[in-house]
């Protein structure tokens, strides 16, 4: 800033000198004394718009009194000064804020968050996810009533399409797929066919039109999470005999080979394993609201009974089907 000012000053001096020389030359040529005002004297002349009284038109008296003018200018300057002060002050604070934030961000890795203690255990979620609450209402003979669910599912499964999984590799099932040492983390292939009737390949309506709606259950992604044991999803309902639950893959198994997850930047093509739950609703249970609770079981390090967190390792939703 200082240097810039110095340069500016130097430039203006140079140009002044240049102008002077130029003017002198011109004066010599044109012999017009009006134009030859030495730079020094010119500086003495009051700048335009100054309050300094002049005798222009002999109307000295008619001009506002200089003292009042000075006051007005002074007040204007003062309010300007306050504005300037706040501009500088808040500018400084903004810069300070930005700087400290920048310093803080520099200490962070772009791959892994510094702490993961707030999400020690994953939550469960389902797809499709109704907008408001986890409640499915549809009429199996009215395709409009479930069109949204179907399109959500289709959209969700798009990333699982074989064409998108070209670069994914087939991993060894039943084993945690550790890639700590590799620079490029590979993603394991999740075959859509494992979802059977819920894969949307044979039944484009995911069973909704037949009264056997599919719901996909997924476990939240958590970087570095390695489930122990043999985790599987199990769903149940309190209203016995209302619904028959079929799992894809069979037994609701979640394969360990999909773990651990290495984060968005390192593990770009990662696909989380899914469990599809097909609800074969008994024909005499239509119009009933059926509550279904799914839990993750079989793994000691995945919690599913937290008092406060109703979605930690479990999820409950309602289904009501009409004909």
């Amino acid at each position, binding site marked *: 800033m200082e240097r810039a000012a110095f340069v500016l000053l130097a430039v203006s001096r140079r140009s002044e000198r240049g102008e002077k020389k130029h003017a002198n030359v011109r004066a010599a040529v044109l012999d017009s004394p009006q134009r030859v005002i030495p730079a020094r004297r010119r500086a003495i002349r009051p700048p335009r718009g100054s309050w300094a009284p002049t005798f222009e038109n002999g109307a000295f008296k008619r001009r506002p009194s200089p003292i009042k003018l000075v006051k007005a200018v002074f007040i204007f300057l*003062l309010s300007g*000064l*306050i504005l300037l*002060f*706040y501009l500088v*002050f*808040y500018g400084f*604070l903004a810069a*300070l*804020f930005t700087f*400290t*934030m920048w310093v*803080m*961000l520099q200490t*962070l890795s772009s*791959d*892994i*968050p*510094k*702490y*993961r203690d*707030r*999400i020690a255990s*994953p*939550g*469960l*979620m389902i797809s499709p*996810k*109704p*907008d*408001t*609450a*986890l409640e499915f209402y549809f009429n199996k003979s009215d395709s409009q009533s479930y069109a949204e669910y179907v399109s959500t599912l289709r959209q969700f499964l798009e990333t699982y399409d074989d064409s998108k999984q070209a670069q994914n590799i087939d991993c060894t099932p039943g084993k945690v797929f550790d890639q700590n040492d590799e620079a490029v983390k590979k993603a394991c292939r999740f075959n859509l066919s494992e979802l059977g009737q819920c894969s949307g390949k044979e039944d484009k309506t995911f069973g909704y039109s037949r009264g056997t709606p599919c719901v996909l259950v*997924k476990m*939240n*992604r*958590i*970087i570095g999470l390695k489930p122990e044991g043999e985790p599987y999803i199990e769903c149940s309902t309190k209203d016995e005999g209302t619904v028959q639950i079929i799992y894809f893959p069979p037994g609701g198994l979640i394969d360990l080979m999909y773990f651990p*997850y290495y*984060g*968005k*930047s390192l*593990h770009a093509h*990662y696909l989380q394993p899914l469990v599809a739950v097909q609800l074969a609703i008994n024909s005499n249970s239509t119009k009933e609201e059926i509550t279904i609770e799914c839990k993750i079981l079989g793994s000691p390090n995945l919690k599913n009974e*937290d008092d*406060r*967190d*109703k*979605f*930690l390792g479990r*999820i409950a939703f309602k289904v009501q089907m009409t004909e």
Partner: protein
Amino acid sequence: MVGGFSILLWIGAAFSWISFGIQFAQGAESPFDNLYLGVVLALVVILTGIFAYYQEAKSTNIMASFSKMIPQQALVIRDAEKKELPADQLVVGDIVEIKGGDRIPADIRLIFTQGCKVDNSSLTGESEPQSRSCDFTHENPLETRNIAFYSTTCVEGTATGIVINTGDRTIIGRIASLASGVGNGKTPIAIEIEHFVYLVAGVAISIGVLFFIISVSMRYKILDSIIFLIGIIVANVPEGLLATVTVSLSLTAKRMAKKNCLVKNLEAVETLGSTSIICSDKTGTLTQNRMTVAHLWFDDQIYSADTSEDQTTQPFDQSSQTWTALSKIVTLCNRAEFRPGQENLPVMKRVVVGDASETALLKFAEVVLGDVMDIRARNKKVAEIPFNSTNKFQLSIHETDDRNDKRFLLVMKGAPERILERCSTIMINGKEEPLDSEKAEAFQTAYMELGGMGERVLGFCHLYLPENEFPDTYPFDTDSMNFPTSNLCFVGLLSMIDPPRSTVPDAVSKCRSAGIKVIMVTGDHPITAKAIAKSVGIISATSETVEDMAKRLNVPVERVDRRQATAAVVNGMELKDMSLQQLDEVLCNHSEIVFARTSPQQKLIIVEGCQRQGAVVAVTGDGVNDSPALKKADIGIAMGIAGSDAAKNAADMVLLDDNFASIVTGVEEGRLIFDNLKKTIAYTLTKNIAELCPFLIYIIASIPMPIGTITILFIDLGTDIIPSVALAYEKAESDIMNRRPRNKSKDRLVNEQLAVYSYLHIGIMQSVGAFVTYFTVYAEQGFLPTTLLGVRVNWESNAINDFEDSYGQEWTKYQRTYLQWTGYTAFFVSITIQQVADLIIRKTRRNSIFQQGLFRNKVIWVGIFSQIGIALILTYGLGHVTALNFTPLRFQYWFVAVPFAILIWVYDEVRKLFIRRYPGSWWDKNMYY
């Protein structure tokens, strides 16, 4: 419990309950948060109300102990028999008997008296007992001799009278009702606090409404907008402040009580500080309230005596023979005696039976000569004529203690001119010399001089009765006066005065340098009043009254320019004839004023006159008659020792030692507390911005909520309370007694600079520091700042349990909420840490902290440790109680805001430096609060 902030908080509570009701009806999942919040807000209002009431009640209780009245009994003659009746059962027409020591049970007209004297001091302020007889002497009931008034006491003698007025219809009762009728305006501090409340409430409401509109127009739900509004209100209202102010005031009140100023009304503490005129009594307040020998005249020379409170010796020349003779007269011609059993007490503190002048002489003699009673025993009294108003002298005849001298000694004292008449000789250097005109002239000069000093002068003379005429066995008869009472030998003059208290001149000059005008209002004679005023400095040595100028210039009083006289002595009679304008003129034009011969009623007029000048007036008083003036004054000060109950009831403050100097220490405390309250308020207001900004940014940028309403309450009512009280212990930055009293309309408690500096400078800095901590916590858990913008709806949705962070991880609602509470805690901790810096910078407003001393006020450190301690307990101790929204925070987050705290300190030091360097500059005007 209503008005001001309470209203805002009630509104907040009501909104909370309304939104609870709506949410509950809609079946939302956790509506109880709002219910609790409403309850907490209501509790805050109620508790602070109870607290303030309790503090007030505590100080009133002290008063209650003062006015404990013993049920009074009266001896009545009814149905031809004497009965003891409670005084309140008396009726007009009852005949009552009173004797010395009784309180008069009603207004009575006397029908029989025997040597009855009453002490009317509680009514009129006159300290001399007045005799009462059955004669009607004056039209005015207050002046006539045959009426005794309710609540005055009968000092000696007995009397019988008819009850003419009882209860409220008595003179005292009428004055009391007059006093209760006098309007009592708001105290200056109450006005200041009201102003401050308006300011803050104005900010709260306008920001609240503005953001309500913004949030509605940003398509937030009305219910959400209401919840934001509650948050904004809670953040803006300094919930703990009014309690803090009360505590600070009561701390000062306690400190003042130690210095003998007992404050009845807490707010009066500060009123004393803004006092610009003190109307002070003379007797007892400025003076010691006891006659003391001030000057002696013998051997044609005036000697001064020591008049201080604790005299043990007298320094004047005692070698002359004349002094020996004079001291003998002083000792012997005196009926006053010490009460027995006080040998161990200093002479000045002993109780004496006798009137004021005799007491003065007795004590004087005791100090100079030693055991007076012993001297009297050795010079046995054989005859005595006590003082009476017709003779104007007192005489006694004694045997002498000189065994070889068998002559009797006749000693006499009295009004100097009467004594001189009876003398033919005068003693000079122990020799009797004829009293010629030259000596008489010398006497006159001395008498005038002593009288001119406002002193009461007594003459002393003696005569040794010739042995041949008055042998041992001579029967002296005081009725026939069979002994000479003329051609005596004049020995000397003694003059007495009620001398000023030794601390008063200093106190008056302190008042003067503090810009406080001291006006003396007394019932005394103008000369005495002026003399005392001069000796204590109320009239300074160089200033003159109109009369003085007239005398110096040798022109009539009317031709002197009144404006040139700085001092004025106004007589009560003149005051009576003055118009209001004339009084205003006197009060305006003269800086040193003495009102003499004033009645207590005129005090009220004087007080009103002073108040018309825009002054904050303090008035001292003790009599019942003073109570209207005490009530009318901005601060009424009653005397603790001499004061009547009525005066104490009407007053805002009681001076326990009746000493004027105590008022001045009170003024000092009052000014200090005003300064310190400024600091307290500045400290408290600062963090409001750091509490408010989160809401505003939450609404505008839709980030997860940075701080919860409950958390804010924990700052306002938890960590911040003790530190803000600690500021009340701060010492003054400079000599506060060297500046003028504050201008009520200009020097506000909370001015624009204070609000702007607290809100827009330090407050914003705090917010920045707290936000850095907030973003750090979120970023280190996986939510980078950019991810946080605009996520509010999804973040708060209960249905979304796979919320993705910046690293691809997914969070359930509860996990997010827990993180949000961690954010609250981090924000809370940052504010607390920065409030430590805020507390330190608020120690001074102008001086550098290093000038003030970091460790001089130990309570500040108690404040700092309590602040951090409470924060630690909340985060780590109560971090598992979900309702409080605190979580155990990683330890390093405590230090994120430390650089900002240091910055606050440095910034404020720079501010103060420029203020000191460039007084009156733009910076000074904008930055000094």
